[in-house]
């Protein structure tokens, strides 16, 4: 009952006309700017932050939450339409989402993404409202050893992510991990693999990787085929998902939501795993796995809600522990600081209006997204009618601007070019870039957590087995690898022998 009265308080705060308007404006601007290729959620929030300066803290946070959801969704839109993921979660959406767009089903992909995100947002809001405090306590059980084991499990997922050869997927993960070690070593400050070059001295930005390996490399691939590779025009009446597609998506949406909600709680940025985990799960559960990577709706209907639910529950460590789990949340802390709010354990008790108002506005933000984006789907799909000979020029210039705006560093644009050639080469040799991205994202966290865990245990590697949660994850990881690798080895052997 307390939950209901709390949500009631929240609704009273969030549903004031001004706050509704602000939430709407935030979602709208967030979507419009987030959809620009190369402008990820972090850049979008930083750009729009000054708009909230004049507001009272609650209103400002509500608007910021709107901007955040808008930016997230805008990013997914860009990666579905143009295959330009600006962050690691959008990489997963792009796999099947962009394939759907190329088959003329962009509207369906965007629609299911909006609907799925709304469902996920609704459920995650309830999870936060009901369980925020106890969940935060659980999250603290996770130390470096547990995170390392979790990341290991995540990498095992990545093996199953691949469309083709398992061996090649493993190699790609390793290459991603290797790329993540470029730059200064966290523990000693020594530079690694930078070739003495200043512009590599801080490592490689994930946004560069996304835009290079996917965005520009995709342009290279498309140009090979000329206009023939142009996106097909959607037949009338299929702009939004039909009933059969909706039915197909229900379970993936719910499973994705569950995965995302759980992983988002972890303060060490567990949410980044959510879309990958969901994609793998859907692929494993599907009757016909070969559809994945070729425009399977579950490939969007799972990961998108997972991402959104994770984005939402990652507010839990922020609001209850004061620990921002990722860069976006760190920026939210900055924003809160501007308004004199110090995120931490006391927020819930000392500022109940703000806390519950924010939670209610999360749900409202998700509703706004649906309201804003369903009508916009038509507009976005129309955008695809721009002839490709001009479209790719636009993509290139937006990627340039996006990369330059991250750090005002021209050399970053060249790195993006290099990564694009690398990505083009990968496909020429039958490798896929998606596992590489996951290896890149997890590799760095994995190495850091491994080293921290070993320093804490004073060099005793048994720490990963003695700690039950870590041990459980490692068992899962090994099981996943076995499940992933064995069939393909057997299949491979059969092939060899039947020849």
């Amino acid at each position, binding site marked *: 009952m307390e939950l209901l009265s709390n949500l009631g308080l929240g609704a009273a705060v969030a549903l004031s006309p001004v706050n509704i308007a602000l939430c709407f404006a935030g979602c709208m601007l967030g979507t419009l700017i987030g959809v620009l290729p190369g402008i990820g959620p972090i850049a979008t929030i930083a750009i729009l932050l000054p708009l909230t300066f004049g507001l009272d803290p609650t209103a400002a946070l509500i608007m910021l939450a709107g901007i955040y959801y808008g930016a997230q969704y805008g990013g997914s839109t860009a990666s579905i339409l143009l295959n330009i993921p600006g962050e690691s979660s959008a990489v997963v959406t792009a796999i099947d989402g962009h394939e759907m767009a190329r088959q003329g089903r962009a509207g369906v992909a965007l629609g299911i993404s909006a609907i799925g995100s709304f469902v996920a947002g609704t459920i995650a809001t309830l999870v936060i409202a009901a369980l925020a405090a106890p969940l935060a306590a659980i999250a603290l059980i996770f130390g470096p050893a547990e995170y390392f084991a979790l990341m290991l499990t995540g990498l095992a997922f990545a093996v199953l992510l691949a469309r083709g050869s398992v*061996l090649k997927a493993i190699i790609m993960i390793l290459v991603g991990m290797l790329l993540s070690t470029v730059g200064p070593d966290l523990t000693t400050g020594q530079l690694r693999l930078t070739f003495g070059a200043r512009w590599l001295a801080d490592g490689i930005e994930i946004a560069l990787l996304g835009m290079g390996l996917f965005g520009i490399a995709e342009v290279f691939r498309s*140009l090979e085929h000329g206009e023939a590779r142009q996106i097909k025009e959607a037949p009338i009446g299929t702009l939004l998902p039909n009933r059969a597609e909706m039915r197909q998506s229900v379970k993936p949406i719910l499973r994705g939501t569950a995965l995302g909600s759980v992983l988002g709680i972890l303060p060490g940025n567990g949410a980044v795993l959510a879309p990958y985990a969901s994609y793998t799960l859907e692929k494993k559960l599907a009757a016909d796995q070969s559809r994945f990577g070729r425009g399977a709706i579950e490939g969007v209907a799972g990961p998108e809600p997972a991402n959104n639910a994770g984005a939402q529950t990652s507010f839990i460590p922020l609001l209850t522990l004061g620990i921002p789990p990722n860069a976006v949340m760190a920026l939210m802390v900055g924003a809160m600081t501007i308004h004199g709010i110090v995120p931490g354990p006391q927020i819930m008790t000392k500022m109940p209006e703000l806390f519950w108002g924010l939670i209610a506005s999360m749900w409202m933000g998700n509703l706004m997204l649906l309201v804003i984006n369903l009508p916009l789907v038509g507009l976005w799909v129309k955008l695809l009618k721009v002839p490709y000979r001009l479209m790719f020029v636009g993509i290139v210039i937006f990627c340039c601007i996006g990369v330059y705006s991250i750090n005002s560093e021209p050399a970053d644009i060249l790195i993006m070019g290099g990564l694009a050639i690398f990505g083009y080469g990968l496909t020429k040799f039958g490798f896929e870039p998606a596992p590489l991205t996951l290896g890149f994202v997890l590799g760095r966290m994995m190495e850091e957590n*491994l080293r921290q865990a070993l320093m804490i245990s004073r*060099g005793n590697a048994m720490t990963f087995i003695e700690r039950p949660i870590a041990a459980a994850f490692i068992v899962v990881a090994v099981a996943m690898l076995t499940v992933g690798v064995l069939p393909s080895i057997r299949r491979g052997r059969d092939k060899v022998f039947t*020849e």
Partner: protein
Amino acid sequence: MSGAGGVRLRSPQNLVSGLILIAASAFVVWMLSGLSQGTMRVMGPAMLPRWTAIAIGVGGLVLVILSAIRDGDALERWHLRGPVFILAALVIFAGTIRQPGFLVAAPLAMLVAGFGSREVRPRELVIFAVAMTIACALLFRFALNQALPMLVVPALSLNF
């Protein structure tokens, strides 16, 4: 594999990619030679990258072996027109964005990139480049207040 002519190459794609991976792995291991690997308790900076690189090399070796025993794809053709023009565009953009600035960098880069497509129509491309430059300038510099130098010509003491 009963032929007397020794091992038959069955997958050129795997062979070449395997060889590239082995070479890259060796290169990385060599690059890391100056860094310490550390101990179990205090791992050095080279530990993880070195073993990752070695694992990649092993993966490459397996690919090379597989290329002899399992059928695979032939090497694909690289189409260089698109990449060449786009890379040139990126280099131009990177070289001119600081000085003389976006108003020069963007149209130049777009004009060059446009020729990456075989269907390029120069007149249309020029109009598109100019329109996009103006739109982006207004959007990023004025509406979004981003640090994007527009026109910087020290000789004319322009810094906009």
